[in-house]
């Protein structure tokens, strides 16, 4: 592998700028003549906007403009879109409520913008915003999903009667009913998947700069996918054509899905920069992040699992209500459908599955993909069902899983996905060994003697990543293809620039992508740089989410590298007067195999550019590009086991051990992979124990700051005990499956299974706060 090649724990190249305070995030950028935007947001969950009086504000010093939703309408700026069309079981398309970037008539969640103040400084904009008088007529609001679908509930959108977005189904209902009719045992479970706020530590921000002479816009934004942002802003919002809009996503301080979507603020900033003729900057504060960053999860599900007399699963029935908030965010519709229900088979042989998903509008912040996106909800449901079943059937939970594991691959599930490879027994074995599963009973007894309730919980997750084969997602309603692009530019001196459509906002691409190049050419990673996050530099790309950067983005780089190497070999062969077939690449040299004849890579590069002596008919230069479209999803999978203690007097949970055994296929940089798992586990554990975005009955958010929303802190979490098992992904030449979301997908079920094991009661919702655990212990 070489010290910097594939599989090496290379320290990150990008770190130097971050640890010395030289990162460049959007809010760090200042443009000459820049103005500052402050949005005026609805304090009501549902109201008519009667009148906006900005006359006093406009007289204040430093105020450049106050712009409203009506002006957006007048300028024909498009409404926000949802890019994945879902069809209900009755054949009707999903019901889209119109979502203008600033509301001209009706606001439908607290925090929705109605106007924006543009001023010379942030403080002046804030001061002036205080002076804008908005006259609202309050309307009845509904925040709870169950309440929203009841007859007589306040209605959000005329387009969506009954507040229903869609009623979608997947699987074979007849076969599933038949399985239940013959079942020896049926296990039932109701679960709520709590709503989460993503809370990347860098709040969203945007700077828009309009050049009137060129009629050209530049947008600096906190995006996970700058090209997709440009595409959507151009194609749907009527702000600027693509060739007149440059989108730059510089250093971005975390995303977790929340920075995939195109939000009203960047649209308004672009539009306003043209209107006021000066650059416009907006930087969100944390409260705005809570109010306007797309939330995650928020499902209520009833599920039933049928077993035969041998404890083999014969059928699964699921009915899920998914809360979308007040509007359909960019990819929201796909999350509880194709990203959730298609994973309901888990790691198990389930012959018949039927799932129904009802999407619901409520007067809350829109909900969309958050780390894992649908797959954590599926995994949590299945793994809690398995644990519940084991308790009901009185079998060991690990054994019940083994009885039902899929062991033959490829495996076609009844819900679209075809698992390509895996070894679920191997990861469960590794996790059980790491935690000494066999010794648990003795440890539990020991803890009991000290007045503590000890529990152990298993979670065997699977996810579909490497998103995604374009043709497949297109047939399911996606509005875009999900390939990735790459370009390899070799400079005349032999240094290399890799341009990628993937975007790093913490994932370490500047290191791992170089490792592939180092591995293939034997050059040091210091000779390679990664260019990303700028639509003027990189031709196109789909960005980073869904654990796709290595499986899809890096494969695109590999394809471009192969083309570049093929040309370079021809040049080397010509220079060395050898046959191209005899050229091998080793340690930065092109060698004639079996001889001592060699030419250094920089000399090949130079030859390509001097073009003095190239093979007959060859074009000068050494630069190749590739687009890679995956053939299938990838299927990372693994086993997590959590051991913990509950203090029955306080309901407080303390971790004893948390082990994770993951199969991600090939690892490029194990150190970075482990970091991804740690972060994912923290988010999964956060969901299980701490985090919950709560609204009161009138749609007022009660958790809109770090004082109220419990973020995982260092002392809430244990150190983690990680290991890997490996089956290489057959779907891409590098054998990579992806690692970005696994922790968040698998962790929460392990924690709740452990707590319910400890307290001997199965009925416990997330987040399992001490209060909730204590009440559950002491419930009659």
């Amino acid at each position: 592998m070489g010290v910097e090649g594939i599989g090496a724990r290379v320290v990150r190249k990008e770190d130097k700028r971050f640890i010395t305070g030289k990162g460049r995030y959007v809010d760090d950028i200042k443009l000459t003549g820049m103005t500052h935007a402050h949005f005026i947001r609805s304090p009501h969950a549902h109201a008519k906007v009667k009148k906006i009086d900005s006359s006093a504000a406009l007289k204040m010093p430093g105020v450049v403009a106050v712009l409203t939703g009506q002006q957006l309408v007048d300028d024909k700026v498009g409404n926000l879109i949802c890019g994945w069309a879902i069809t209900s079981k009755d054949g009707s398309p999903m019901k889209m409520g119109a979502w203008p970037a600033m509301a001209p008539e009706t606001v439908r969640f607290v925090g929705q913008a109605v106007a924006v103040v543009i001023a010379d400084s942030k403080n002046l904009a804030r001061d002036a915003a205080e002076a804008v008088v908005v006259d609202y007529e309050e309307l009845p609001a509904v925040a709870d999903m169950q309440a929203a679908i009841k007859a007589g509930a306040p209605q959000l959108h005329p387009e969506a009667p009954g507040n229903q977005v869609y009623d979608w189904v997947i699987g074979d209902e007849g076969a599933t009913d038949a399985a239940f009719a013959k079942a020896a045992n049926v296990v039932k479970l109701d679960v709520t998947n709590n709503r989460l706020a993503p809370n990347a530590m860098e709040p969203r921000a945007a700077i828009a700069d309009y050049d009137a002479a060129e009629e050209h816009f530049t947008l600096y934004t906190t995006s996970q996918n700058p090209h997709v942002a440009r595409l959507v802003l151009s194609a749907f919002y009527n702000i600027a054509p693509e060739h007149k809009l440059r989108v730059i996503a510089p250093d971005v301080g975390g995303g977790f899905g929340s920075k995939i979507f195109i939000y009203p603020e960047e649209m308004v900033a672009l539009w306003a920069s043209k209107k006021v003729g000066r650059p416009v900057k907006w930087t969100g504060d944390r409260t705005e992040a809570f109010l306007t960053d797309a939330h995650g999860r928020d499902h209520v599900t009833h599920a039933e699992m049928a077993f035969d007399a041998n404890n083999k699963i014969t059928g699964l029935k699921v009915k899920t209500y998914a809360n979308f908030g007040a509007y359909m965010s960019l990819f929201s519709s796909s999350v509880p459908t194709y990203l959730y229900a298609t994973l309901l088979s888990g790691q198990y042989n389930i012959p018949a599955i039927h799932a129904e998903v009802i999407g619901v509008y409520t007067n809350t912040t829109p909900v969309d993909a958050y780390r894992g996106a649908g797959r954590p909800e599926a995994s949590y449901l299945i793994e809690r069902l398995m644990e519940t079943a084991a308790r009901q059937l009185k079998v060991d939970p690990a054994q019940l899983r083994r009885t039902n594991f899929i062991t033959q691959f490829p495996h076609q599930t009844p819900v679209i996905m075809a698992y390509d490879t895996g070894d679920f027994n191997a990861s469960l074995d590794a996790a059980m060994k790491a935690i000494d599963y066999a010794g648990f009973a003795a440890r539990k007894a020991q803890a009991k003697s000290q007045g503590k309730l000890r529990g152990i919980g298993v979670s065997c997750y699977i996810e579909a990543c490497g998103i995604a084969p374009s043709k497949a997602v297109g047939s399911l309603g996606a509005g875009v293809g999900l390939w990735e692009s790459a370009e390899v530019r070799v400079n005349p001196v032999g240094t290399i620039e890799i341009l990628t459509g993937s975007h790093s906002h913490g994932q370490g691409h500047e290191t791992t992508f170089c490792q592939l190049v180092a591995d293939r050419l034997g050059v040091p990673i210091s000779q390679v740089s990664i260019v990303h996050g700028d639509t003027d530099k990189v031709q196109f790309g789909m960005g980073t989410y869904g654990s796709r950067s290595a499986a899809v983005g890096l494969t695109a780089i590999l394809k471009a590298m192969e083309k570049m190497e093929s040309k370079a070999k021809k040049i080397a062969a010509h220079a060395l007067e050898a046959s191209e077939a005899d050229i091998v690449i080793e340690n930065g040299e092109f060698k004639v195999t079996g001889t001592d004849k060699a030419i250094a890579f920089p000399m090949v590069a130079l030859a390509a550019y001097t073009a003095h002596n190239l093979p007959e008919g060859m074009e000068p230069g050494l630069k190749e590009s590739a687009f890679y479209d995956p053939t299938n999803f990838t299927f990372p999978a693994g086993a997590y086991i959590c051991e913990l203690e509950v203090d029955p007097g306080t309901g407080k949970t303390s971790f004893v051990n948390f082990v994770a055994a993951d199969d991600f296929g090939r690892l490029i940089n194990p150190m970075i992979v482990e970091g991804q798992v740690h972060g994912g586990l923290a988010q999964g554990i956060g969901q299980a124990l701490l985090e919950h975005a709560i609204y009161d009955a009138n749609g007022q958010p009660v958790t809109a700051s770090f004082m109220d929303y419990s973020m995982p802190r260092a002392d809430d979490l244990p150190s983690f005990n990680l290991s890997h098992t490996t089956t290489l992904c057959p779907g891409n030449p590098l054998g990579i499956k992806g690692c970005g979301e696994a922790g968040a997908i698998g962790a929460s079920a392990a924690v709740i299974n452990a707590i319910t094991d400890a307290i001997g009661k199965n009925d416990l919702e997330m987040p399992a706060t001490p209060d909730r655990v204590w009440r559950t212990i002491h419930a009659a």
Partner: protein
Amino acid sequence: MSTVKLTVNGKAVSVDVEDRTLLVHVLRDHLNLTGTHVGCDTSQCGACVVHMDGKAVKSCTMLAGQADGSSVTTIEGIAKGDELHPMQAAFRDNHGLQCGYCTPGMIMSAIDIVQRHHSQGSGGQLDEATVRQELEGNICRCTGYHNIVKAVLDAAGRMKVAQAAE
């Protein structure tokens, strides 16, 4: 408006600011020291931590005027030229950062934690539980803290060696 005089990273500076200006905004907007970040509006996240007269403070929670006359060190001021501070090096070597947004505040808090424990004469022994507890005021969404804790413990050792050598 008031004039605030500070020593920032060893250099004397004087800025005229509105009285309501926070220290973090003086650093970021007036002095272009954008390594100090803002991650919240309730003094919870620690992305803004700097040292004032040698102690860690949240620069979002202090008016610039309150810092008048003091000596402030930011993330940009802890390396000696090209030589990283041991805490910076430990964060890099232990993969204690991902997106880097919390990192400057984490490093500044962590240096303070280690220095306090070393000077307490408790043999300077920091353990994992203590580090985790003392990092309460710094939120990281990326790393799950695992490698941050490792980095701080690693740096505690390095700083002790450096201290002994001085």
